[in-house]
């Protein structure tokens, strides 16, 4: 999706006409290994995500799910292997036919397509809600302030926070802050939205509001979602595919009915039994 295309699906539009939803491979992990000291978090991981799909990563903590999102957001680099987004290497680039660590310019170009919502929201506390959302569209995408503000107001309406435009993040509840963070990520019109345990830091009564917003976005947009969550009902609702992780590898994957209804591995059954 480019910066000019609308966020919402055109009703009746031919999905195959939009390159974002033609089902082609959008994300590809190729033998990716990531270690933290002696601890191997991802072990020669292979997996891919087709564009327009909603993929949920589940598994015990420490199984590498969040690391996958952080690798995709270029917050950390793989020790071995390659990651491609949209056919472009993420942390590498080709120079004279050889694969070398990517320069800042290349990383910024590929990163344009990716947005992320964090567990701790990470809103900018020194900016009002509106400017949190318009800052990057203006300075990175080059939108005019008016256009960015219009886009921000639309998104705030989508997440149900229109009346909070002029507040600072500190004046909002956790659930409201997280909805602003979702709007902020969407304002960049990413092809891929990464959701990193976005409800884990919230009081229980605020979780539903955030998940409803995400369900809405999953239903009404073409955005590819990669989601790490412990909310299994939510995962079942929005996912096209669920990947069960264990010890840095994909233990099994499939449509949610299969993973939640009839998992192949005892380890998966055990995990699902524990989180329910």
């Amino acid at each position, binding site marked *: 999706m480019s910066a000019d295309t609308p966020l919402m699906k055109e009703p009746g539009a031919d999905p195959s006409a939009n390159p974002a939803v033609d089902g082609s491979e959008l994300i590809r992990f190729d033998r990716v290994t990531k270690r933290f000291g002696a601890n191997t978090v991802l072990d020669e991981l292979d997996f891919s995500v087709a564009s327009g799909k909603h993929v949920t990563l589940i598994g015990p903590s420490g199984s590498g799910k969040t690391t996958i999102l952080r690798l995709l957001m270029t917050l950390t680099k793989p020790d071995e292997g390659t990651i491609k987004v949209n056919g472009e290497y993420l942390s590498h680039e080709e120079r004279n036919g050889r694969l070398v660590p990517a320069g800042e310019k290349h990383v910024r170009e590929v990163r344009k397509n990716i947005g992320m919502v*964090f567990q701790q929201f990470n809103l900018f506390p020194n*900016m009002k809600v509106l400017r949190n959302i318009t800052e990057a569209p203006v300075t990175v995408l080059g939108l005019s302030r008016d256009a960015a503000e219009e886009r921000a107001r639309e998104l705030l309406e989508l997440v149900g926070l229109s009346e909070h435009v002029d507040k600072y993040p500190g004046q909002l509840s956790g659930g409201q802050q997280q909805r602003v963070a979702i709007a902020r990520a969407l304002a960049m019109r990413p092809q891929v939205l990464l959701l990193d345990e976005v409800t884990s830091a919230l009081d229980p009564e605020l979780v539903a509001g955030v998940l409803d917003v995400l369900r809405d976005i999953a239903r009404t947009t073409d955005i590819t979602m990669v989601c790490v969550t412990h909310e299994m009902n939510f995962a079942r609702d929005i996912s096209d595919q669920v990947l069960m992780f264990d010890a840095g590898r994909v233990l099994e994957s499939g449509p949610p009915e299969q993973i939640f209804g009839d998992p192949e591995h005892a380890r998966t059954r055990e995990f699902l039994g524990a989180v329910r």
Partner: protein
Amino acid sequence: MNWDWSAVGDFMPHFWDGLLITLQALVLGSLISFALGLVWALLMRTPSRWVRWPVGVVTEFVRNTPLLVQLFFLFYVLPEWGLTLSAMTTGVVAIGLHYSTYTMQVYRAGIEGVPAGQWEAATALNLPVTRTWTAVILPQAIRRVVPALGNYVISMLKDTPMLMAITVLEMLGEARLFSQQNFQFTEPLTVIGVAFILISYPASLLMRALERRLVR
């Protein structure tokens, strides 16, 4: 010891001259130390150790040698190298430079106090590095360190009498000159002592109030 109000009256015109010079030195010295300290703090964060190493050595050197020595050095040695500055300019530069090596540590603490999540959010939004600094990191870091910077301004105020050593007639210089000419020491020295307290005590109260408001 006799207190002579007429001596106070005679001293006051000199006192106002001295106060003006003290405040000028304080304001200019503060501005230099705020700006230069930020430059040092940012240079210390560059990836290149060819930048960090010399900056570290110079600032460590300046911080660990006495301000008085630096004043004399700038005032008496620089002219031998062909650079002659007025006493006031030399004093302001020396104070600003000396205190910049303290403010740089204040800024560093402020910058390190900004949560990693702020950098990560800026990366996720693809903000350029300079924009991340100017729009996200520094506004948060500086807000937190305003009280600490203010406390250094108060310290600086109390160091301004050292400028007397290089012939700048700030408050203490005026008091000494008056005393030597009139053989009345008690009144002028008391007046400037009271003046220091009248400036620095309310200022420190203000910093404490700011600390409660800004540092959360």
